[in-house]
């Protein structure tokens, strides 16, 4: 079998190196190499989608290699695995990454200076983003998570707009603080969780990992609970699959469910959970740790904005579902209202801010805050509708925000001006452009028959119907759909309706060119297809989500 997930990660990394070492006179090929690589990635992602077994309960396309194994004496044995796999929650994200990175690569054709650096970093980013979504070992996840920062920092900081230094450093610091939180919890988890299979090998119960049986694992867990395993024989692990099982926690460890370690009124598990939530909320981003996003977007070049909104933000929501929630289910239930509240406030607050914006790109950046709030609300509900809806919303927002930022880029590339007041009545002069903008706006404001509707409908339905949350939170969040209509339609009216007027000459404002149509048209088709046939994605997520929900009973 082909190690397809590894190929997905390493193909772009290898070609990033290739671009780095190719002689200068190949510069014109860099964009084509990038396009080719992301194209192959997209094909592979689609292959994953089509060959994914929708009924299977375990991770698929798994790859595992022992990476680092260190005997640490009394601290037991340290083990980090190169462990990859996907399920119904990560597959949509991987597919989305394939789509967004490909479209971003086409959009990157407009980058003219320092191409070697740009395309090298772009491919580096591609590899690490996908790595994030397929890693099942927390250490590996964290590695990719951090790795992503580097290309992102430079992509904004070098190819960005006038305030690029400010924006990139703000992005960097915010995200770094977030990863610090995650790092703390990761170490704590590592010290608390053991790999029962490896432990069995260490104890000499079996010779080889392949001999393991479910009974043996139960037996090891039993011994662990009774504290009968010597510390030297405990094999600590970053394996997320083992972390999600409370029976793998060492009895006297800090993060064991029965641990009585507390700081003030908070148990250590609660603190660990909240740190993870904070870390991922920064990435999402949620109120009040969102202020890096508008700045980063405004300064970032179009393709980087597309990638940032289209796929990077999703890592926040994905982190909730893959790491924070399965490992700390009881905390998730306990803090459901808090998280839902942050989600609902993000929806409304983001929408209000979008309403006040004079810069089109900033308006869209804030609309992202609002739309990602739905994800948080849906996840917090811990219902099948809410969680499926949240994954759907992430996918849909990935497509739609990519379109939105491409559309802003269209104007920006023509006039270098994104102020809403600089344009009026564009509908009569750029009809195709206007058509795409109107379509994307309506899709984004959650009109049925577009993908946005499904995500919003089910996140709200889930949040409304769970006993965990008071009804007013959902009602508050639902106001987002009215405000959403408000800022999108107002913008449409200010820029596109009325008689044509612009600060710029009409000759500067031609309608969409072929390259722009090639990027936008397929995305529009996807937004409609996933709106009309939501089972395209829900079939993938349903089983995994029901599996996920069993952790919470």
């Amino acid at each position, binding site marked *: 079998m082909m190690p397809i997930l590894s190929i997905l990660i390493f193909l772009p990394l290898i070609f990033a190196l290739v671009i780095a070492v190719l002689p200068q006179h190949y510069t014109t090929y860099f964009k084509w190499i990038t396009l080719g690589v992301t194209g192959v990635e997209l094909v592979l992602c689609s292959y994953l989608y089509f060959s994914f077994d929708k009924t299977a309960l375990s991770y698929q396309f798994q790859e595992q290699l022992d990476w680092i194994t260190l005997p640490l004496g009394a601290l037991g044995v340290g083990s980090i695995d190169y462990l990859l796999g996907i399920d119904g929650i990560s597959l949509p994200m991987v597919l989305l990454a394939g789509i967004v990175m490909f479209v971003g690569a086409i959009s990157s054709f407009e980058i003219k200076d320092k191409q070697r650096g740009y395309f090298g970093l772009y491919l580096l980013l591609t590899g690490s983003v996908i790595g994030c979504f397929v890693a099942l070992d927390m250490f590996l996840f964290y590695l990719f998570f951090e790795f992503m920062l580097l290309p992102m920092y430079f992509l904004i900081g070098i190819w960005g707009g006038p305030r690029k230094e400010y924006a990139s450093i*703000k992005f960097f*610091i*915010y995200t770094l603080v977030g990863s610090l939180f995650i790092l703390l919890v990761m170490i704590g988890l590592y010290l608390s969780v053991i790999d029962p299979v490896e432990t069995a090998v260490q104890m000499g119960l079996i010779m080889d990992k392949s001999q393991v049986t479910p009974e043996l694992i139960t037996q090891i867990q039993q011994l662990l609970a009774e504290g009968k395993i010597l510390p030297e024989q405990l094999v600590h692990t970053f394996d997320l699959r083992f972390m999600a099982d409370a029976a793998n926690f060492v009895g006297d460890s800090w993060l064991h469910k029965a641990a009585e370690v507390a700081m003030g009124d908070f148990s250590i598990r609660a603190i660990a959970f909240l740190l993870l939530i904070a870390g991922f909320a920064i990435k999402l981003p949620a109120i*009040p740790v969102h*202020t890096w996003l508008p700045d980063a977007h405004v300064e970032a070049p179009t393709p980087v904005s597309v990638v940032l909104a289209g796929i990077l933000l999703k890592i926040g929501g994905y982190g909730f579902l893959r790491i924070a929630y399965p490992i700390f289910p009881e905390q998730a239930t306990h803090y459901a209202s808090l998280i839902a509240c942050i989600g609902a406030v993000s929806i409304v*607050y983001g929408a*209000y*801010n*979008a*309403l*006040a*914006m004079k810069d089109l790109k900033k308006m869209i950046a804030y609309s992202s805050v609002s739309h990602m709030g739905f994800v948080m609300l849906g996840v917090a509900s811990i*219902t*099948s*509708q809410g969680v*499926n*809806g949240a994954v759907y919303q992430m996918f849909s927002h990935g497509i739609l925000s990519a379109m939105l930022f491409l559309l802003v880029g269209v104007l920006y590339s023509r006039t270098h001006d994104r102020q809403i007041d600089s344009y009026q*009545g564009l*509908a*009569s002069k750029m009809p195709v452009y206007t058509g795409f903008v109107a379509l994307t706006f*309506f899709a984004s404001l959650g*009109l*049925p*028959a577009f993908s946005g*509707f*499904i995500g919003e*409908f*089910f996140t*709200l*339905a889930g949040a*409304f*119907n769970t006993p965990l949350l008071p009804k007013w939170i*959902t*009602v508050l969040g*639902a*106001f987002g*759909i*009215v405000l959403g*209509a*408000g800022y999108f*339609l*107002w913008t*449409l*009216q200010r820029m*596109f*309706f*009325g*008689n044509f007027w612009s600060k710029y000459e009409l000759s500067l404002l031609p309608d969409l060119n072929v390259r722009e149509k090639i990027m936008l048209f397929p995305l529009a088709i996807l937004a409609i297809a996933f709106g009309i046939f*939501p*089972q395209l994605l*829900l*079939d993938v997520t*349903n089983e995994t*989500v*029901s599996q996920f929900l069993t952790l919470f009973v």
Partner: protein
Amino acid sequence: MSLITLIPLFPLLGFLINGIGFRKVPNSLVGIIGSAAALASFACALSLFLNFSGTPQLVHVFDWITVGKLNIAMSFQIDQLSLLMLLIITGVGSLIHIYSIGYMHHDEGFGKFFAFLNLFLFFMLLLVMGSNYVVMFIGWEGVGLCSYLLIGFWNKNVNYGAAARKAFIMNRIGDLGFLLGIFLIIAHFGSVEYADVFGKVAEGGYLSGDKTLVAITLLLFVGAMGKSAQIPLYTWLPDAMAGPTPVSALIHAATMVTAGIYMIIRSNIMYSLAPETLEVVAWVGLATAVFAASIGLFQNDIKKVLAYSTVSQLGYMFMGLGVMAYSSSFFHVMTHAFFKALLFLGAGSVIHAMSDEQDIRSMGGLRKKLPITFITFLIATIAISGIPPFAGFFSKDEILAHVYEHNKLMWAFGLLGSIMTSFYMFRLLFLTFFGEFRGTKEQEHHLHESPLTMTAPLMVLAVLSAIAGFFNLPHIFGGHAGLAEFMAPLFAHSHVETAEVSESTEIMLMVISVVAALASAIVAYVIYVSKKAVPAADGAESGLQKVIYNKYYIDELYDAVFVKPISALSTFFHDVIDFLGIDLIVESIGKLVKTLSAEARLLQNGTTGFYLFAMVLSIVALLAWGLQGFFF
């Protein structure tokens, strides 16, 4: 493929052809394709109606959504209610499509117009055919989209664009209620299919006034208030007149705005168990009926008068629903679709002839130049005013008779509304078609009767407005209330208390309202024909008249109470909380780190003496720490 699935498919095809082929399909073909799509749907609907067995039919199109245990199917339900709605939508829709060929002929967006009109039909059909609330909601939002696109069809005019936006956002507020209602239905019944939900209500032994049902019905009614322009969400409909006139006739008079009534009749089993909601529905309906009629009294824009009249008539329908006179309300939906579509198309014909003039103060004496328009308009006016034997008389009187049984005060107000209706409609008729022509010479020279594509639909609708009352002729006139009988199975499980109105009361009520309507028509005649009064120029009104002419300043009120504060709040959120609050904190933390590290850097100054000093100091400190147990 069954006939049923074909019904929405034709307009969808029409939309795709005219939409994708915009500017490529020749104009002569555009109108034919668009109208043919509507007519084909009408033919299918008619054939279904004629072959209808009496038992509802379900057509499963495809499995749409499965999330966890919740299944939502894309499926259609054909029963008495959807059949009647189908006939109205496709029937009136076809006529309006044909009319539009003549009306929109010179417009550069001709193809786009027909594409949107077909798309509207598609969503409207989805709305009434869906067998569950989610499909209804899709149609519901879809018609909202088309309404937006068509109101803002001439969006080079900024005001028109604003009207479109207002319509969409106000509808969204209503949709919020609808959406929450659906969530509550999912939570409570675990399904959104009508058959499941209503089945569970019928067998669930719910008591009248059950809290959940009251909550569900109230939330759904919020949706209805938005779509059907009831107080307080009505102000978008008069503004929606910015759209081309056929749009006003089809969407904002005959079909879309009655979706709210459709929704309540569809859910009648729940409403009948929620008397509190019904009371709210009735009073909101009544308030809207009277309030809007009073605004209609002094408007001078031909379409604005008709718009307020629509709002007011929708109020009557809700009032009827509120007293559980479901079939009477539906009867009014039907007759209203005929005569209001006719009035709008007639107005369109006038506007067409007057070179886009809409102010009735500049009209007058048009009956000689536009004879067909005049006669059909006259028939519609009589019909809406409730003068027998035309359609509006029967339907409105049925509602009022039921209201009378429910609450006499409500009836009195209802009567007041109908007196006003008759007055403003005859005022409109007289100012437009009687007296001397008051427009410019150019306009007078250009006056002409509209082409056949426009007058033919007028004539068909005029016939329907004249005779539709006989579809549901009450028993006292020797009829057998055919419509009510046909619709009876829809209400089989509702606990409708049918308090029969005695014949003598019924006759008395009819006489009162006919006399009242005639009297106010005569008053209008005296004022506007005999005395030749012409409404004052803008700004010259005074007192109460000024307040009413300015629509009670409700738009200004909403602007001050909602729009401005929201806009202020959004600026506050961004400029103060985001910018001064969060960002300032973030940046100060950054600065703090920078300052501290600048200070800390000084410790490493490279002087050996300083390092030694530091080392000694540290050792002392450590020793002190280690020995503290020894000393204390």
